[in-house]
């Protein structure tokens, strides 16, 4: 396993700037999640590290050496894609063994068998080893394609939304599994997603991308509690942070254009009257949709609240976040 570093990496496709002077340090053994909407540059970053694409400028270093002139195979990285691509004519066992039997690695057959067995157990697919790859459910196929990366010991695992095509329950299970596997192996992992729950729950570090720029990098808790901008604040947290004109409440610092209120920043019982528009019972939490002087906001309330649409709730901010007109955080 190794550390990976990007230095001022820029990549354009025609007139589109996919990545703009991105510098990023992925420490050995870290689980780094790149988060951002479609088009932010997440997948481009993975493809540049793997060697599938070349940067226009900047340097990429794996375990201390510049890899710009190396082929994907020489870089010793393993990639898992969103769309699992298994060999349909091979069994699960042979799909898993395939990377180990590559002429570059020349793994002895007994070592291949041992490795395949180990990985199959970790991913709970041991009982399907002799099935054809096409005779699996979607979840099983994705586990095999993750397994095909895990049989190897690359410098870094690169994963591009590997869980996004799975159903909610399986995704929740695999989140924990993946985190556990990564910790057990001490593997370095770079993982791309637009799912904030995956980012928060698995990452040791989250990198937030906005139109090709890395706008914040740090532990999930730091990104959530201490976002540098309104954009970053909106990437994490459900219900999403409410962004309202700063003038709605007293106490805004000078230069503040927007006040950012997460549910825990809204104190109920005192302050400005707001009207209840809708009460949403989600089971473990109840969301209040409020109207405050014509502005929509969403907060949480007691699960078994008596509040109904049309009721009035007084609210006031508590340790809110403030942002200037450009969206930058004012501390």
């Amino acid at each position: 396993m190794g550390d990976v570093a990007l230095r001022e990496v820029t990549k354009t496709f025609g007139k589109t700037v996919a990545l703009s002077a991105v510098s990023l340090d992925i420490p050995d053994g870290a689980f780094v999640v790149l988060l951002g909407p479609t088009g932010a540059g997440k997948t481009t970053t993975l493809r540049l590290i793997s060697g599938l694409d070349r940067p226009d400028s900047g340097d990429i270093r794996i375990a201390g050496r510049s890899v710009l002139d190396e082929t994907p195979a020489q870089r010793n990285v393993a990639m898992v894609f969103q769309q699992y691509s298994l060999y349909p004519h091979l069994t699960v066992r042979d799909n898993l063994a395939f990377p180990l039997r590559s002429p570059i690695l020349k793994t002895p057959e007994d070592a291949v068998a041992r490795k395949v067995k180990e990985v199959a157990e970790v991913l709970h697919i041991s009982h399907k080893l002799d099935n054809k790859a096409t005779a699996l459910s979607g979840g099983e196929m994705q586990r095999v394609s993750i397994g095909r990366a895990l049989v190897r010991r690359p410098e870094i695992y690169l994963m591009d939304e590997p869980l996004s095509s799975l159903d909610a329950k399986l995704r929740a299970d695999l989140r924990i599994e993946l985190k556990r596997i990564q910790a057990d192996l001490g593997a370095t992992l770079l993982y791309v997603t637009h799912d904030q729950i995956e980012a928060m729950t698995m990452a040791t570090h989250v990198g937030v991308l906005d139109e090709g720029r890395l706008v914040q990098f740090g532990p999930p808790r730091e990104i959530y509690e201490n976002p540098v901008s309104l954009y970053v604040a909106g990437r994490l947290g459900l219900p999403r942070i409410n962004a309202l004109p700063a003038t709605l409440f007293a106490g805004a610092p000078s230069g503040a254009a927007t006040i950012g209120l997460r549910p825990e920043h809204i104190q109920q019982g005192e302050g400005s009257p707001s009207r209840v528009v809708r009460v949403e019972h989600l089971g473990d939490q109840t969301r209040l949709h409020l109207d405050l002087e014509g502005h929509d906001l969403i907060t949480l309330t007691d699960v078994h609240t008596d509040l109904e649409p049309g009721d009035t709730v007084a609210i006031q901010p508590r340790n809110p976040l403030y942002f200037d007109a450009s969206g930058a955080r004012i501390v």
Partner: protein
Amino acid sequence: MAEIVIRNLRKEFGDFTAVQSSSFKIEDGEFFMLLGPSGCGKTTTLRMIAGLELPTSGEIYIDGEEVGQKPASERDIAFVFQMFALYPHMNVRRNISYPLVSQGMAKAQVAAKVAEVSRILGIEDILDRPVGGLSGGDRQRVALGRAIVRDPKAFMMDEPLGALDAEFRERMAEELRALHDRMGATTVYVTHDQLEAMQMGDKIVVMNHGVIEQFGAPQDIYDKPATMFVADFIGSPSMNFLQFHGSVEAGARQVTLHHHEFEIPQMREPFDGDMVFGVRPEHVRLTDDAPYRAEVLATEYLGTTQIVTLRTRDGDIKARTPSDQTARVGETVGLEFNGATVSLFDNQSGRALRSDLNEGVLSHG
């Protein structure tokens, strides 16, 4: 608008019974969810209400009139599918006006109707655009517009948001619900996404293998599940199940689970045999001194809360706790459960045992 009553509805496809014997009532103006995993019979039920399938037996009443064997065209219902099929060669305006034009409505009236609907949906500025270049959300709005424009008695929606990505789905769900609140039309909505059902529905029917497992308001179904299937299907993470063998008397307020006493809602029926102790993750508390011990397997940070996965001698448990409470992987902690929220189940049949908590909600007796 319409009240819809379903009585003993059954549908067989050859040897396969898709819907066993469903009975429920959809009030006028309700946003009504049919929820369950694939193959549970929810879409078949919807298609029978719409008249796209005819029931093998049973009745469907729309506003008091039995329509079970009538064709779809005589039921005055609009259907919105998961794969919204728009006419690709027509622009947005012609797509929306098509149902009216084909009914032979006068031109001026059609124009007024289309204007009204596009205002409701906020798509006035794209009326003259071809549908080919529209974003997923706008396509979905156009599909909705085509359903709304007819002023039908009720809307049937089959996973209309299923094809959209998570962030956008959340927004469309809110939009759809707000639209319903403005129009007040009876809506029957099929989904396999429990969060979507909880978020949007006034009432939920939970189906499994062609059978209705539970019918009620979202919060009731969450707090007072009638079966282990419902308890597991609703909620994320789902309810924790601890299996044990023992007995409870009617009137009992405690249960003994492997030598540990736990409070429970007062029981309304006795039971002896294999049971399951069910507790939601947010009702599990980590304390240093509680005698029921568990090892922390994993923690998942979620902002204000975290999910802690723990291993007890009776199985794995997930707890939802404030994220400022520390829980370190590998350490051993004590667990407490909020007894007032606990459900006990018969492990064999999966049904919830009757107690103070769920008595008003369970239909079986």
